[in-house]
Structures are given as C-alpha cells and as structure tokens.
C-alpha cells in the first residue's frame, strides 16, 4: 500500500441532525479521512480511483486535535472514513488513539467485506468501534457485481456484518450498523429491494446519500418507496441533503425541516 501524505481536513458532520436549526446539539461525529478515495464507488458512473492511505502520524494528530476541540456536546465521537480503513496498515493504532483521547463513540466507514476475515469483526469491536457504516451500492450480489465488477462481494459484506453483530451480541454491547447507499442512476432501480435485503441482514439504518451525479427530482418516488420499505421492515431509512425527498416523507431527512425537492 502506497502511503500518501495528502492533508485532509477534519470535518464535523451532523450524522444525526434532528432539526433544521444548526444548533449542533445532537449526536455528531467528526469525520477523519484515513486516506483518499472511498471504499466503494459505482464503476459505471466513474472509474474506480486508487485509494491511498494517509500517514499514520498525520491521522493521529488529527484525532487528537479533534478530541481537544470537542465542546460540551455528547462525545467526542470520531468516524474513521475515507479510503477503506481495513487497508490502512495502522488501523489498530488509529482506533486505540481514539480511545486514548477519550472518544465516546468510534465509528468505521468500510466496504464491509473485510469484517468477515481474520477475526476483524470481533477485533474492531473489542478495540472500541461501536458504529459501523458499510457502503453498499446494492445488496443483491448480482446487481452489486454489475456495479462494482467484483463477483461475490456482497456475500462477503453480508458475512462481515453478521460477524460484527454476532460479536456485539456475544459481548453484550450496543452497536449501530448503518448501510450507506450512494445513489445514482444505476443504484436507484433496485433501491427498495436493496433496503429490504439490508433489513434482512439486521442493519439498523440505511442512509441514502448523493452519488457522483445529481438525481432528477423524479427519483423522489423511488426514494419514498425505499423509505416505506424500511418502515415495514423495521429499519430506519434516513436521507441526506441533496437527495430528492417528497414532502410526505420529510421526517426521513437527516436534516429535518423541509423536504429536499
């Protein structure tokens, strides 16, 4: 793995805003990029970029700075994201540093398949990771393969999520598994099916986020159907800014206050 030294600024992202007013009084995470790139991207929308990890020292410094700057809000809460964190050579040290600086909630954003291997699921849980964000384009293996070009990937992701949930159950600790679905013209047609399958895996929430290209407002019908599929399958679906959402479903918006379309 080539290690890049590209500085990536820490960003506080309101993962769970419950009100339009930016009072910042909800469960927020500071998102720290462990490298450039994203765990998963739609290959039809954009050529897959090579992920590059950042130097460990720069990430550790950023973790410490983020913790020190944390105010009175619940936390500190840190999400390690960016390129696939399981490919970072010093991931255990990164998580350990989050614990050392007093992080109350630690999250990982991952493609998910690595969780199934080598005791990774129990390992990250034991290290302190309580929030898992798995980026998926589709939960059906055939569709996912057509979008990523990687056969069998979703079977590994499903096994990884199951391993993490089982490790948490055995340990008796509360965790949250969120499937993050980037939306594009290629992921949209199977979106409701994707939510249904993810619910059957036991994920606690599905977050719909913008992909590489903007969606037409007409996509809001499919977004609403995905939200309703989540409701009847006891899985919360939350919709990020920039994703068309009809007014009838405004309570699914990450930022409450108005529909997106």
């Amino acid at each position, binding site marked *: 793995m080539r290690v890049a030294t590209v500085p990536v600024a820490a960003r506080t992202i309101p993962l769970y805003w419950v009100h339009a007013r930016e009072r910042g009084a909800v*469960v927020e995470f500071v998102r720290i990029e462990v490298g450039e790139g994203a765990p998963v991207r739609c290959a039809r929308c954009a050529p897959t970029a090579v992920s590059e990890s950042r130097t460990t020292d720069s990430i550790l410094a950023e973790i410490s700075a983020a913790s020190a700057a944390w105010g009175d*809000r619940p936390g500190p809460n840190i999400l390690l994201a960016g390129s696939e964190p399981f490919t970072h050579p010093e991931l255990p040290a990164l998580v350990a540093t989050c614990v050392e600086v007093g992080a109350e909630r630690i999250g990982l954003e991952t493609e998910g398949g690595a969780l199934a291997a080598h005791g990774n699921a129990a390992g990250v849980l034991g290290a302190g990771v309580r*929030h898992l964000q798995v980026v998926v384009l589709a939960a059906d293996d055939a569709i996912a393969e057509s979008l990523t070009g990687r056969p069998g990937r979703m079977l590994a992701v499903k096994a990884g999520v199951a391993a993490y949930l089982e490790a948490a159950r055995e*340990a008796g*600790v*509360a965790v949250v598994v969120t499937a993050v679905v980037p939306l594009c013209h290629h992921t949209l047609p199977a979106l409701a099916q994707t939510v249904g399958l993810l619910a059957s895996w036991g994920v606690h929430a599905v977050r719909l986020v913008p992909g590489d290209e903007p969606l037409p407002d007409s996509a809001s019908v499919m977004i609403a159907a995905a939200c309703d599929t989540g409701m009847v399958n006891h899985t919360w679906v939350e919709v990020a800014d920039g994703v068309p959402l009809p007014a009838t479903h405004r309570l699914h918006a990450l930022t*409450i206050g108005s529909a997106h379309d």
Partner: protein
Amino acid sequence: MTEPLKVALLALNAPGYQSLALGYLRAYAEADQRLAGRVAFQTLDLESDAEAWWVAYRIMGLEPDVLGVSVLCWNARTVYDVCRIVRQALPDVRIVLGGPEVGPIAADVLAAHPEIDAVVRGEGEEVFADVLDLARRGKPFSRADGVTGRDATGAPLAAPDRALIADLDRIPSPYLSGVLQPVEGGAYIETYRGCPHRCAYCFEGKGYGRLRSFSAERVAAEIEYLAGERGVRSFSFIDPVFNLTDERLAWLTGLLEPYAARGLVLHTIEVDIERIDDEAAGALRRAGVVSVETGPQSIGEAALATCHRRFDPARFTRGVEALKRAGISVECDLIAGLPDDTPDDFLAGLEFCLALDPGKIQTSTLHVLPGTELYLRARELGLRFDPEAPHEVIATDTIGFSDLRRLEARSVHLGRVYGARLEDGRHV
C-alpha cells in the same frame, strides 16, 4: 369443618419482578379476621410474555374457587385470553379483575367479557377482602362497595365507590408479613400513594387522589428488612416523585445512606428534576442512587399546557447537570403523540434531551389509558387510539398515522445511536 376458599392470585409482570399489588391484597386479606382460617391463597407471579394457554394450565392446577387478577394495559390481552380459557375449563370459578386497566372501565370490561364475574374499582385491598368474604358466603360480589359485578341477568351492576384507605399503615407490609419474599433487583417499595401532579396522560394523580403516606416507621422497617436483614443490594421505589418535598428527600436519603455505604444501589427512581440541585443530587448519590428517570415527556408548549405539565428548560438542565456532577445517570423520557404536539415539537424534544447528554433517552408512544384525562377527552383533543389495550395512539390532529410511526422509528434509532458508546473506558 368446611374446606377453605381456594384463592389464586395472578399477575403477569416484567421479567424478574413480582407484583407488589398482589402482595398487598394477600397481606390485607390474610390479616382480615373474617377470613382467618377460611381462605387459602396461592400467588402466581408470572412474566408478561407468558403464553395464555400455559398460564391457564398453571391456574387450573390450583383448582381455585376465586381467581383474582391484577391487570395493567401491558398484560390485559393475555389476561382476557387466560380468563376465557379458565372459564371454559372451570365453570364454577369466580373471576375478579382489578388494576388501573380495568377499574375505570369496569362496566365496559364486564360487557365485553362474559367470563369475568366482577371488577374491583380503584384501591383494592379493602374491597378484595370484602369480595372474598362474600365469595365464601356465596353472596353476589356487587354487595361490596367499590365493585362492579353482575345482576341476576348477568348485566353489569356497580356498587357505590369505596373511599380511599385513610391510614395506609392498615395495609400490612407484604414483606414484613412474609407474603412477599424479596427478589434481588426485582423488589418494589412504595412510600406513598397519589401524585402531586395532574398529568393528563397519567392515571396516578387522578386515580389515587390526594397524597397519603405510609408511616416513617413502616418505611424504615421495610428498608431494614430488605437491605439489612435480607441483604438485598438492589430494589426499586415506585413512588411517582421520589423528591416529593425537600424534607421527605432528606429523611428518605438519610434512611438509605447507611445501607448504601454497605453496597445498596437504587436504579431508576423517578424525580422532579427541576427541584434537583447539587445538595439534593449529593443526597441521592449518598443514598445509593445510580440512575433516575424523569421527563420532560414533551417540550412543546401546546402539549405541555394541554397535559398540565410545567417545563422550565433552564431548571431542567440545571437538574440534569447537578445529577451528572454527582455521578448519577439520568433517563430522559419523551412521549410521541401527545395532543397538540407536532412532529417538529417531538424532534425538538429529542434534540433538547440529546444536548443534555443525560445518559439515556427513552422514547415511547402515547398510551391513552383508561381513567386518565386524555382517555375521557380523547375525541375533544383529537386523539385516535386503539380501544383495545394497551390503547396505543394511532393518530392525532397534529401528527398523522404515518408520521407517528416514523417518529417512533427515528427516535428508536436515535436512541440506539446515542446508547452505542464506550463507557468509563470499558471496551468489550
């Protein structure tokens, strides 16, 4: 010598708990001279998720002459199933229900459930003892004040109301009398009845009227029995407001402090948090309190007014902060679906609670309970709810059905997100 009247008492409780209500009923009846040597009790403390046929099987094994059941909104459906099955198997058994779920709607319950003979309305100890005395003499239950029974045609027939028991010490302690054996972590203590508040969704203040207390000596004796003699290290208080007055708080925490020094811990007592300061929080901590439960239930001004609740965000925040400084975890409760609350009101309430970082946030959907003001004024207040127990709200004039379900799902998820954290540096 005639055979004693065989009485089975049934409660379906939260896992790990036993019914204090049945303990009171039995302790009072066993001390009643009319019943001495004439009544034999069996208590079935089962869990609320027990299957009705299995519960009925347990009852039938006792072959009771009278079956008394404590009914709450959570167990009512199972109770009705049990009673229907038992009635078919034991045609001569006399079935008597009591509790907040059935007392306020006694005639309706009897009309809907022909297998039930009578419903005790309100406070049950005196009334149930009278019922048993009537049962052993073969008399109609409707002769007892506080009972709705049946007339000769089977129609509901209500006797006059029964006055509340003025001196609660007349009710023997279920613990001190040996009726209830304390369960570690699952024993309840009650120091008074009634509530100073009149929250429109709650039965406590309306159903039990004015405040009445057990004597200080009685409470002290129960605590000494549980925490001292029996060595119970964790039990619960069911008082609606633990810090009823400053004087009472000082007395009660002073009573508990020596036991706390020897390891007693108290979980989830209910407090009026706007009256908690550092002094009160310190007293609670020294009394072994590790967690408290409180509102605000809603922060929407319209809903608060309709429900007769006061809420001062500054005082509320001060109370939470004082408890946190004392090392006490706070559970903030919110109710979705209160009349006049909007979705944004509810979400603003969640936001307010999360900002306090209290330790735990508990959200629930409104249950329109029989006997409460909301039950009586539901149509006027725009509440549509399931007439069957547990009477969950379906929609309000300000929150539609779908949005109410979304708020439930969202708040459950948010609570999970908040709760998934490292605590005290402890990992797995």
